């Protein structure tokens, strides 16, 4: 649940999602669910020329199981809070 809560805090931020098929999409994080499925708004594909079929896609849903990385804004990461939450989780809540 930790990363679910963590991503929920990032809603509204600009992130880049890199998929297992190497497609990288940048957009505003609209929502995330328990499977870490992600919805992005105002998306643009990082390498647009290679993926012409994505030209008119502005909003998209990404299945959590195909995500390789999510690149976050540096100011979106508070290591202290994450660290504390991890230890809390490890102790069992």
């Amino acid at each position, binding site marked *: 649940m930790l990363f679910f809560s963590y991503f929920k805090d990032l809603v509204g931020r600009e992130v880049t999602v890199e998929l297992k098929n190497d*497609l990288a999409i940048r957009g505003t994080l609209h929502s995330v*669910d328990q499977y870490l499925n992600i919805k992005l708004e105002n998306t643009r594909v990082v390498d647009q020329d290679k993926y012409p079929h994505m030209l008119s896609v502005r*909003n998209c849903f990404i299945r959590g199981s195909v995500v390789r990385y999510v690149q976050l804004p540096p100011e979106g990461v508070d290591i202290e809070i994450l660290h504390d939450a991890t230890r809390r989780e490890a102790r069992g809540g």
Partner: protein
Amino acid sequence: MNPMSWATPDDVLLSTSLATYLDKKIIVLLRDGRKLLGLLRSFDQFANVVLEGACERVIVGDLYCDVPLGLYVIRGENVVLIGELDLGKEELPPHMACVSEAEIRKAQKADRESSDLKGTMRKRMEFLDFD
């Protein structure tokens, strides 16, 4: 029972639910690289989806073709991404040309053969140990 019956309209708008794409034209990217277009008529929590008037968009270089398929049920595990197509925008860049299915299949075959050839050339040169 309708799974949405306890969710208010606001909840749906703010969630990852695909409900906001219902009855809209979407593009579904599959794990094997295929791209299917159609109207989203139904879905569930696994991202199983039903597409009405589905077609496969085959792209080879600057050529493309929409091959009609009909009504499709896609199993969720094959889904990579579901994109809402912005009807106000061009779906493809203007330099791309629409061709017939026969032509796109021919282009696809030629493309596959040239990449196979590249593969075998590379294999033969492997003793050179580039990269």
